[in-house]
């Protein structure tokens, strides 16, 4: 009897999120990605606590230029004798912030465009999606380079430049989800209780589109981080002396033969971040897909 009751209780407690988590947990690679990404996130949030900016990141030490990793400098030092560990830790902040900002920007704009196009359909849909198609036709890196060249280098412009290239993806994903949901009976039922179109989109349709959007967020976040580094590497993103993985790589490239560690650590940071985000995204996609439900 009590066993039955507890079984019932257990069943009741299993909300949708809990079920997704159960499925996610079984995926070892995804859990690995989640752990790594959480670590990177924590390091970047608490960068100031972990490494002092003034003494470790800005302090130059010309007696100790391009030193190999040692106890004092676990990642070694760069061409001005600055601690690479400190610079990698602080560099994560800008990469992640710009990555996140660009995702938020494109999600907001692309998601809204896609939802409106999908929900209202017809001529408006055609107009919006053709404009989106034009954006899609331009390679994202070239687009970002053009925007940065036109607007000038600043953190905000960087977010904008990277974010714009994600807009088509979000618009398309959102539009297709909304079209699939637009004619469902529960949307009709919501109309029958007098809900406004905006209410229907926000409260009835949007929660149903979360799965593909969530996966896309992790994927494009990874791509955003990569793009920040790419732009910084070619000198259009964040310029030295501000530490950023891309510009660190860019200067380290010149000393590749003499001090390979200068390239190795920022490169590893980029690779790890993107790997963890991709693993996380893959895991989420599998966990959120109800067809794979056991």
């Amino acid at each position, binding site marked *: 009897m009590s066993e039955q009751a507890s079984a019932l209780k257990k*069943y*009741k407690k299993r*909300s*949708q999120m809990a079920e997704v988590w159960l499925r996610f947990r079984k995926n070892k690679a995804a859990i690995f990605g989640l752990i790594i990404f959480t670590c990177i996130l924590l390091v970047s949030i608490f960068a100031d606590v972990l490494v002092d900016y003034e003494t470790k990141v800005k302090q130059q030490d010309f007696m100790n230029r391009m030193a190999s990793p040692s106890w004092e400098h676990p990642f070694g030092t760069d061409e001005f004798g600055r601690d690479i560990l400190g610079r990698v830790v602080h560099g994560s902040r800008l990469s992640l912030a710009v990555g996140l900002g660009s995702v938020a920007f494109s999600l907001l704009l692309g998601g809204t465009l896609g939802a409106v196009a999908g929900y209202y359909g017809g001529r408006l849909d055609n107009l919006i999606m053709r404009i989106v198609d034009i954006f899609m036709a331009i390679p994202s890196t070239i687009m970002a380079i053009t925007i940065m060249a036109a607007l000038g280098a600043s953190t905000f412009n960087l977010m904008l430049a990277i974010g714009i290239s994600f807009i088509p993806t979000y618009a398309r994903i959102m539009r297709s989800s909304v079209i699939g949901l637009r004619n*469902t*009976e*529960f949307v*009709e*039922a*919501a*109309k*029958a*209780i*007098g*809900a*406004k179109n905006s*209410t229907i989109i926000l*409260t*009835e349709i949007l*929660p*149903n589109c*979360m799965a593909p959007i969530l996966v896309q967020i992790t994927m494009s976040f990874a791509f955003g981080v990569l793009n920040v580094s790419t732009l910084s590497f070619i000198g259009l993103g964040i310029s030295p002396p501000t530490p950023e993985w891309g510009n660190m790589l860019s200067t380290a490239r010149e000393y590749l033969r003499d001090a390979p560690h200068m390239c190795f650590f920022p490169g590893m940071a980029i690779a790890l971040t993107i790997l963890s985000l991709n693993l996380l995204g893959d895991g989420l996609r599998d966990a959120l897909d109800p067809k794979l439900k056991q």
Partner: protein
Amino acid sequence: MEKQASEKNIVLEIEDLVVNYETDGVVVHAVNGVSLRLEKGKTLALVGETGAGKTTTALSILQLIQDPPGKIRGGSITMDGDALLTFSERQMESIRGDKVSMIFQDPMTSLNPVLTVGQQIAEVIQIHQKVSKAEAEQKAREMLELVGIDGGRAGEYPHQFSGGMKQRVVIAIALACNPTLLIADEPTTALDVTIQAQVLELMKELREKYQTSMIMITHDLGIVAETCDEVSIMYAGRIVEHGTLRDIFKETRHPYTVGLFNSLPNIKRRQEMLKPIKGLMPDPSNLPTGCSFHPRCDYAQAICSTRKPAQTFLSDTHFVECLAYESNTGVTITKKEG
């Protein structure tokens, strides 16, 4: 329809409603001049085959017909003295769910899978009444209790409920704002028979409690007999026979209605073969001339294909649209057996 009796307390009056679905050159005549009126607290059944225009009639009351291609081309719908067809979209939004509610056919799909049932009931309350979120949620729990579900389950999702319970939730949403008119579009088709009885009983109980009028769309004559006061038989977008429950069930007149009854299995004469109505519903984009039922009618004469039948009143409450009941048409219906 011009009966003078019971003029009082008319909740809904539809006059000559015409609804077309118009796509590239093809016009589908879904509803061709439907008139009906409904008194407060009464239940009207709209009965007919698939495609007879029942749902279209009901949806046009709420103006929820998909446009394009659906267009209301004529007639008037009056509710409590308001001409609904002149209302703006915003005015309609304030009526939907508040004065007129709708129960959809399939409770599995008419609830949003990612919102809790409590949220979904609270939503309609928040849209129409100036209450805080907490109050709306409290009211939602009360509505759940009212339809016989433990209020503590308000935080659960639709997939945690059975079909019958989901339909109860849908009924709770429909009745949350105490509507004057409830439109039930085949509310029990998706449920199994034992649950059907429970749900129908519940609807009846709640309607009597709140004096709600109801339009019940169905093709199940058993449900009609159990729950309705008046019956309108629809065929090809017209009401071909209308009367009280007794008129239709005991004094069946229209050949189509007779055919509907003959299509039901009869428990008393089990050997008897079922007699389905021969043929199919006419293509609504290309309706037959004259009486639209004549190609399938056993008693059809030449005149049936040229002359449109008018409403013939057999009593104050009972009318039929068939040339056999009009004088000097030469059409007669000979009843073959009891």
